[in-house]
Structure formats: C-alpha cells, structure tokens
C-alpha cells in the first residue's frame, strides 16, 4: 500500500490524477476491449477463436451498456447474446467443426479488398459520428433513473417515463404490440429452427453420401479437395436431392 501511495505521488506530479474520471476510464477499457476483439474476430482464422473473440467483444459491449445506464439492455445482451446466441453458435461450430472447416482460408486479395472497403466505410461512419456538434459535446452527466421497470411497463403498453423532448405531444404509446409480435416471432423461429435442423430420417447422412461420391477413396485428401476447390461441378449430386 505504501509503495502504491508513493508511486501515486510520483506520477501525480506528472499527470492530473485527481481529475481522473472513472466512468471515462472504464469506457475506454470496455471500448478498447470491444473494438480490439471485434477486429480480432475478423483477423482470426479459427472459428472457435472467432467465437471467443466475439464473446469478449459482445461482453465488453454489455459493459458499455451498463456504463451508459442501460442496465437492462446490458443484462439482456449478456443473457441472450453471450449466453444464448453464442452457445448456439458454438454448437454450430462444434457440429460442423471437422478439421477442414475449422479454418477456411480466404484469398489475400479478398482480404485486401475488404480492408479497403471497410476502411472507407469506417471513414464515412467516423465522419458522420463527428459531424454533429451536439454529439461531440461532453456529457452533462445526468444520472438516469433505473430503466428496468419503465421498460417493463412500456412493454406492457404503459409509458411511465418522460418522452424525448422532440417527440410530438401526446405520443406516449408503449410497446405492447411489438412485444407480442416479437414473442410470436420467436416462437415461429423456434419451430422453424427445430424444423430446419431436425434429423432427417436417412440411412446414411447426406454429408457422408456426398463425401463418398466426390472421390472414391474418402480420405483426408478428399476433405482437403472439398475445402479448396468447388467440387460441386464434378457431379449433379450437389445440385439436387435424390430424384
């Protein structure tokens, strides 16, 4: 403790530590984590690592949400995105993660092109992010009220919060209908996903069938061939199912 104190004293002379803003510091922490991990997702070749980076990025974003006072959305982000979606995604990775598919290489030209386009898009976005005076002004730091209950009420169709200043008078409608629509939508998706991913009653899984038909000795070489060049043209089996 004493050492830390002395170190603090030393640096305090150089840096205005007393003026440190914890909120900004944590923002910086989470923002850097989110951005670095997002870029890492792009850069990584291994699918499982991509998933890991994505989790970290999304988790950091949840932290940003907490910082912005959107606790409910942040928890939601953790629960659904990180907890649910990613487990699902990892599932997919695992189910399809045979050696040849874990990392599929992309041509360097594609990467370069994507880099250029991404950079220009980022430039555009940054340009617009800094183009509005009001957005650039530092926050007034108004501590918002907890939002979980107002959101819950709003989802039930009752608005208890103050509407935005520029909203037309009398517009205080809740979100009951969207809420219901989303519920039904989720149900539909549940059914659809179950339907799409259901086990077809086939004697031999289609994947094995195809792999066997591409090249008679179904070996690692065959997998590599599938990975590298489009084998779909070698036979009509890929285009349609059994007639």
């Amino acid at each position, binding site marked *: 403790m004493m050492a830390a104190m002395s170190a603090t004293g030393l640096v305090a002379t150089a840096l205005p530590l007393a003026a440190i803003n914890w909120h900004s510091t944590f923002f910086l922490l989470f923002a850097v984590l989110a951005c670095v991990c997002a870029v890492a997702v792009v850069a990584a070749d291994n699918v499982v690592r991509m998933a890991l980076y*994505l989790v970290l990025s999304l988790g950091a974003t949840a932290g*940003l949400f907490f910082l912005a006072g959107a606790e409910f959305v942040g928890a939601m982000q953790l629960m659904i995105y990180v907890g649910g979606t990613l487990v699902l995604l990892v599932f997919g990775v695992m189910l399809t993660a045979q050696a040849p598919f874990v990392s599929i290489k992309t041509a360097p030209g594609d990467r370069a092109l994507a880099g250029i386009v991404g950079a220009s898009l980022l430039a555009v976005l940054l340009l617009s*992010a800094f183009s509005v005076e009001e957005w650039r002004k*530092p926050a007034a730091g108004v501590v*918002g009220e907890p939002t979980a209950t107002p959101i819950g009420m709003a989802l039930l169709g009752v608005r208890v919060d103050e509407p935005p200043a520029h909203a037309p008078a009398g517009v205080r409608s809740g979100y009951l209908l969207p809420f219901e629509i989303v519920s039904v939508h989720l149900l539909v*998706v549940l059914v659809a996903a179950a339907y799409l991913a259901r086990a077809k009653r086939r004697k031999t899984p289609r994947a094995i069938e195809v792999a066997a038909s591409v090249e008679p000795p179904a070996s690692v070489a065959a997998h590599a061939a599938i990975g590298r060049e489009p084998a779909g043209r070698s036979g009509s089996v890929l285009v349609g199912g059994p007639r």
Partner: protein
Amino acid sequence: MISLIGSTPLGGGLFAMGLFTEPVSVAHYLVVGAILFTAGIACMAVKRNALGVLMGIELVLNGANVNFVAFASPYLQAEGSRGLGLDGQVIALFVILLAAAEAAVALAITLNFYNNHATVDVDRADDLKG
C-alpha cells in the same frame, strides 16, 4: 495501476486527449459502434465460413445497438438534450431478440447446408447463381 497506464506512451497520449479526465460524449460511443459495425461488415466480406459470416452479422447488429443505447442514454447526452429516451433502449432490446432469432434460423440453415453440401463454405452456396 492507472499511473502505470498513464506512464506508457499510449496512456500518455490518451491522457493528452483527455480521455481519462473528460466525460465521454455520444460520439465516443458512435466511434465504438462504427468500429464494431465495420468489423462486422469486414467479417461478412472476408469469412468463407458460414459461421464466420454469422458472427459478422452479430457484430453489425451489435454496432447498431451501441448507437441506439448511446442515443438513448441520458447520461451521455450533452447539456439540454434528452436523446431518444426509453425508445432507444427498447429498440436495442428488440434488436437483440431478433438477432437471437436470426442466429437460430441462420444456424439451422447452416446445418442444413452442411447436411446437403458437406461444407460450410459460403462460396459453395452458389447453386442459384445467374
């Protein structure tokens, strides 16, 4: 700890920009959102693995969500501005929910694709090309 960060060149630069001391603004969040968004787009454009494309989509949606939350947060608003209020958060909520739904369906499609084509390479999903 902070002092250590501050003593590094990068940390010093950040201090110079006032990032540790000044309150953050909406624009800060927008920058994060833009980076996430761009990373997502790039991910979609680069990855040949269908799951990678999916992750790119998640990133894009998340980038958009960051913007929504930023505009909604009263804490981040400049003096005299209220932002989107609750609406932004609720929209972010819906985006998350729909992203989950989208992920489920997309994953199911991917699995189906894998069952039929024995691969998850999106470049091979060109049976219907012109």
